[in-house]
């Protein structure tokens, strides 16, 4: 698995997590990763993944110094950036690319926005936790999911609710 770093901004994708062991499992994971990479490079699916990785890198660079917001914000830590790269790389194909942002406490954010009342925001913490909050019309949901390399089903469900319903 190759990840971009703040010092070395090559854009690449994290490996698809594999639960298997041995050369066959490794081969399948590599092939799957390569397939995902090729699909994203075609741009025919409109996923905007490359643009999202680029945006992530730009945001992380812009927010790497103390007080980047003028109000005393914390810088984005390299481990936060790495978790965010993995999270973005793990999104299933077909999910629209999110908008990337940053919060003053040093978390990176991913946002899916349909309207002011249909919005999902996910914060990636330095520990790799995914804090989410969503407005779904007149209802609201929020919580935390750990990130272990795969997009949590709760998060996927919320993305689909905000974007597709």
């Amino acid at each position, binding site marked *: 698995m190759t990840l971009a770093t703040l010092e070395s901004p090559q854009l690449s994708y994290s490996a698809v997590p594999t639960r298997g062991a041995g050369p066959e499992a490794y081969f399948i994971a590599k092939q799957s990763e390569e397939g995902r990479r090729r699909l994203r490079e075609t741009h025919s699916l409109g996923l905007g993944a490359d643009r999202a990785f680029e945006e992530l890198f730009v945001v992380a660079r812009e927010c790497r110094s103390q007080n980047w917001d003028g109000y005393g914000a914390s810088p984005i830590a390299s481990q936060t950036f790495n978790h965010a790269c993995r999270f973005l790389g793990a999104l299933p194909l077909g999910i629209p690319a999110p908008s990337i942002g940053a919060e003053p406490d040093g978390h990176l*954010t991913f946002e899916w926005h349909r309207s002011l009342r249909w*919005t999902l925001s996910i*914060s990636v913490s330095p520990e790799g936790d995914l804090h989410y909050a969503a407005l779904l019309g007149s209802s609201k949901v929020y919580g935390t999911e750990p990130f272990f390399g795969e997009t949590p089903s709760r998060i996927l469900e919320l993305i689909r609710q905000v974007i597709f319903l």
Partner: protein
Amino acid sequence: MNGDVSLTPVTDDEALARFVLFRGWIRSSNSTVKPDAFIPYPYPDLSVTRHIGLSEQEIWQLGQAVADSRPATLHGRADIQALQVTGRSLRIVPTSEPKNHANITGWPKDKPVQKIIALQLAADACYVTRPSGN
């Protein structure tokens, strides 16, 4: 309009500004502000500027002072009515310095709860782009 409002309590009909120095806080699709701008930090306060007693030009001057402290570009501001803040069980505490400054306080510690409040504030906020020449 002049006069020191530093110690006067904030009324529900007052407008408050959160200055935006980071482009990533603005949605390019429709020029609205993201909830990221309303996450309280350093915890437990969210810094805002009261509009009361200030002309538009003076509000932008105060924003420029925030930008100069970094230094950075002042892109705009997110305006929110005090009622939208107090209606979510937060308090607005004026401070004597800097001019017209107040802290929105009373935030829960739990990050997801902060986020849902920030989302609601962002949905109620009105983003104002900095006019050229200010």
